[in-house]
């Protein structure tokens, strides 16, 4: 047990990286829910779509960097199409119907994935530019790509904050979540805003899948697995609170990662147990926005 402090340090960094990735996903989920009131269970499917598109484009084009803009444009288009054909019809219906619609979409995405890519696990190569490792001790080192993931998530989080809090469009989005009719009567096209918020929310999920793919590889069911953890993040953080989502994503990322090292048998349960304790203490999450 000579190198355990550095081992612990590495796992902590991994936990933070996982947490930041969860934040990227959860913020998309919470954006769509907070603004449109739509609970989109298919959010995890977009994570999967992002990862599989990265796998496919990286194989076809051979360059992950070039794949990024192509992929994001594709997902944005899928988001716009889904919102205008399906989700826009459900804004006035109750959550039950939205849950079912998105469950149907999960089945469709999973089966399309199975038809197009089969049921095997595939790995995605790390881009050569970021494939180096930083040596920590004689035997341990930390891959640069994982640091890149953390950095990219932080950049996106910062961009989101600036857009939502500091720009005119952000103001319209915030106003639209508070009072849809009022915003509409002020001459703002709220339908257009909803469409783009939905498309950008799912694109964030796909982006998370894209940048996680080289680390996590792509496999069947990856969307469902991460979706549930995202729910835990949102519930623990409190719906509508970006700060809460950030803090709870980091807590859960670290607990999950360290749990897998310390208590591998109970790592699956640890996160949910944590959620149960937090709910007992604060039923509305850590940072509730009234």
């Amino acid at each position: 047990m000579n190198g355990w402090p550095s081992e612990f340090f590495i796992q902590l960094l991994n936990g933070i990286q996982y947490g930041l990735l969860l934040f990227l996903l959860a913020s998309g989920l919470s954006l769509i829910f907070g603004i449109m009131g739509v609970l989109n269970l298919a959010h995890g499917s977009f994570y999967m779509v992002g990862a599989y598109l990265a796998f496919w484009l990286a194989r076809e084009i051979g360059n992950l960097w070039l794949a990024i803009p192509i992929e994001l444009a594709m997902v944005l288009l899928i988001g716009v199409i889904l919102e205008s054909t399906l989700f826009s019809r459900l804004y006035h219906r109750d959550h039950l119907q939205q849950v079912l619609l998105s469950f149907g979409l999960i089945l469709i995405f999973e089966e399309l994935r199975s038809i197009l890519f089969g049921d095997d696990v595939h790995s995605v190569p790390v881009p050569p530019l970021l494939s180096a490792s930083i040596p920590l001790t004689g035997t341990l080192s930390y891959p640069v790509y994982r640091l890149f993931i953390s950095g990219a998530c932080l950049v996106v989080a910062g961009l989101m904050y600036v857009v939502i809090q500091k720009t005119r469009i952000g103001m319209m989005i915030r106003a639209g979540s508070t009072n849809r009719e009022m915003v509409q009567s002020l001459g703002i096209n709220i339908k257009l805003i909803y469409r783009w918020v939905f498309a950008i929310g799912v694109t964030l999920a796909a982006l998370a899948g894209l940048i996680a793919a080289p680390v996590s590889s792509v496999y069947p069911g990856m969307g469902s697995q991460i979706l549930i953890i995202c729910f835990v993040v949102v519930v623990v953080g409190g719906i509508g609170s970006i700060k809460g989502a950030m803090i709870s994503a980091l807590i859960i990322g670290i607990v999950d990662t360290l749990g897998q090292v310390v208590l591998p048998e109970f790592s699956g349960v640890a996160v949910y147990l944590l959620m149960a304790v937090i709910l007992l203490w604060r039923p509305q999450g850590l940072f509730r926005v009234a």
Partner: protein
Amino acid sequence: MRIGRFILVLGAVCVALVPLTGATFYVQLVSKIMILAIFAMSLDLLVGSAGLVSLGHAAFFGVAGYGIALLSPKYQAASLWWTLPAVLIVSAALALIVGLLVLRTSGVYFIMVTLAFGQMLYYLFHDTKLGGGSDGIYLYVRPEPSIAGYRLFDLEKPVHFFYFVFVIMLGVYFLLKRILVSPFGHVLAGLRVNEQRMRSLGFPPIPYKLGAFVLAATLTGLAGYLSACQFGFVNPEMLSWHYSATVLMMLILGGVARLHGAILGAFAYVLLQELLASQALFGAIAKHWQLGMGVLIVLSVLLLPNGLASLFDQLSRVRPTQTSQ
């Protein structure tokens, strides 16, 4: 409504006659559907009357299944008379604990929290050695209903099992029907529509919701017990949220807040699934039946928001006016 009731009775008689065909495949298929119908009806008590959408209900189904599998001695039949109540008590006790926690939340939070609790129990069985891990465990011998050494019926025989499930399904249907028109049922309906008003009328929401949650979980446990008996096998998938969502889908497909909707939905869903997965009809694509199911789910949400039972309600409403004219 008289015609509606007539169709229901006719449907029940048709189901009861299925074993006369002598085809074991259909007897077993319909038994499976009836078990799912019990599950869907108990979920309807939560979703339809109390307005609590749970995505973790399969946890109770799975825990009850594991209950009977773990309680049974390996090569001997356990007694039905004590294993069934024991499993139901375990389901109810678990629901009491989980319910106290999850009912602190409401709305979308409730959906997500029940889902997370369901997954917690899923991982408990999936990752630990408690019930054979991800492989699950076998129930080699089905429980035996015997009185003073005399075996009343034999659950190993598909036809006996069929009628056993049939009677239980009818029992659950009438029990829930009775509960929905009782004062308790009315309070639940009131809480669904306007919780604030019910509270000011002097009905505290939590005890009523908790009662519904525990009752629904106990009846789901009953379905889980029957399901483990039918297949002789339990695995963590019984607890997964996909299972909860599938049963919720049956309920919506059939029609929420009408008990016969839950039964109708279970039949429609499983028969559709059999149809889409039939190799004779769809050949190689049959393997990907979930694609067709997903499309049907999306279409049914868009086109049939009140479920199949709403078509059926229209039917039974139209006919009497035609005859009176």
